[in-house]
């Protein structure tokens, strides 16, 4: 559908939030017990942080929760009844989500729709509407200006201008949101795309060459590059980079409970972990650098080769929260032939 443009004055945002809570299960940024910014379900607008700051945890959990029951089973006589989890009861509105989180859903949908339809994930995605808030400035370690995704998969996005937000509606769900609260929005008459362009230039989020997609051909020949070992051996193998990442979707399936009552659940897992691919026969990724290499190549070579887009939206969380500050962008540039000096100077041979 053709994009439509509206104006939402800043003082109407609170009212939009309060009214949306009647029709949607509204998710917005708020503060948790330790003062971290998180996507939560604040009850009133005073607790909502309608800001472009990036929460440590992405919005991934609203489509793929960290722990989710797939099957509940119960012994009845000699029969066992097993039933799946219920689809969400209400529509969900992601209110003021970052662009890098909103676009990630569209990228990850492809693997969850590949041949087999993952009903728990897609059930939630079908009922989710994303109302994104564009970043007015580049944050700590972001590099979304080097990744070619734009506003894909975003239903509506608000750009903060003087005194009002310019709201660009891109999908049916986005229009449904605007139509439902028509009186809060005014039709935008000015040249919307130009003001978006100036907004991005001021924010510094205009795409800059070379894009990281161009690293793929060199990455395909860098699997056995000698410097993987020395550059990725500082990786400690924790799960931070994959759990905070909006596009990492790997999970584990486990059972909990007795033989007559319990549940089969799915929970996040991380390829950097020691036992991710360990089998009784062998462990193909026996060294930590091989596990880190898997994560980088899956995002910048394997996934794009299979599904099209990079499995990365450049949000930079995996750099910001990495205990040893390994920088995935620098490593992609080094192994992808876009840079000839390794990050931190570590190198095996000349």
């Amino acid at each position, binding site marked *: 559908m053709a994009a439509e443009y509206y104006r939402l004055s800043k003082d109407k945002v609170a009212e939009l939030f309060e009214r949306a809570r009647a029709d949607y299960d509204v998710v917005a940024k708020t503060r948790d017990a330790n003062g971290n910014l998180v996507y939560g379900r604040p009850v009133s607008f005073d607790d909502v942080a309608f800001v472009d700051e990036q929460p440590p945890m992405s919005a991934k959990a609203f489509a793929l929760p960290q*722990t989710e*029951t797939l099957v509940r089973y119960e012994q009845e006589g000699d029969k066992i009844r097993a039933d799946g989890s219920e689809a969400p009861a209400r529509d969900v509105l992601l209110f003021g989500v970052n662009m890098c989180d909103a676009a990630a859903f569209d990228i990850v949908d492809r693997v969850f729709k590949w041949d087999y339809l993952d009903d728990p994930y897609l059930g939630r995605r079908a009922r989710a509407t994303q109302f994104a808030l564009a970043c007015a400035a580049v944050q700590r370690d972001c590099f979304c200006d080097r990744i070619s995704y734009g506003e894909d998969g975003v239903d509506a996005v608000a750009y903060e201008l003087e005194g009002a937000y310019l709201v660009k509606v891109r999908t049916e769900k986005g229009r449904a949101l605007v139509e439902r609260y028509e009186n809060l929005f005014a039709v935008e008459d000015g040249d919307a795309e130009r003001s978006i362009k100036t907004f991005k230039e001021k924010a510094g989020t205009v795409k800059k060459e070379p894009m990281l997609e161009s690293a793929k051909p060199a990455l395909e020949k860098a699997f056995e590059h000698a410097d993987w070992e020395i550059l990725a051996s500082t990786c400690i193998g924790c799960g931070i980079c994959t759990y905070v990442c909006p596009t990492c979707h790997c999970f584990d399936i486990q059972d909990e409970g*007795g033989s007559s*009552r319990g549940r089969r659940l799915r*929970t996040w897992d991380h390829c950097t972990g020691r036992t991710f691919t360990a089998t009784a026969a062998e462990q193909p990724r026996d060294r930590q650098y091989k596990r880190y290499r898997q994560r980088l190549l899956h995002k910048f070579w394997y996934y794009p080769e299979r599904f099209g887009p990079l499995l990365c939206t450049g949000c930079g969380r995996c750099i910001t929260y990495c205990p040893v500050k390994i920088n995935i962008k620098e490593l992609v540039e080094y192994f992808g032939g876009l840079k000839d000096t390794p990050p931190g100077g570590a190198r095996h041979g000349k």
Partner: protein
Amino acid sequence: MPRSAATSSECGRRGTVAEKEKRSARETAGPWEPNIVGFLCNWCSYAGADLAGTSRIPYACNVRVIRVPCSSRVDPLMILRAFREGADGVLVSGCHPGDCHYIDGNYYARRKLIALKRLLDHVGLDPRRFRVSWVSASEGRKWAEVVKTVTRELLEAGPFRYEENGDD
């Protein structure tokens, strides 16, 4: 879980320890009874409990006994797993310091259990839920007393609610 060491008549008709599913069903008849897992060292406390039985000393039969070679064989992992599997209280009982069949097993156990006790107290777990006792092979009466006190205190403390975790 092996047959409970307590063989007092009062407990006879309840039979052997139920499989963990029946216990998690929790709809045993009558008022709520605390479910206590007891790790008893084979040489002293297990023998003491046996003595209580053969001496026909009546006492509550809420303790499901697990026989271990020595109190230092009890790993904090087992204790926390017992709470996860539905125990309301855990009791570790071994030889008095100095009596250990393995000379200093219970001395090591003491430090380890002190560390666990300090942590469980710190995070706010009801102190009545994790108990340690020294019961020698001749102290059948003391064993019955220990079980009575632990059971009585747990009746006051109430069931240990292990919250179902992380559902969406």
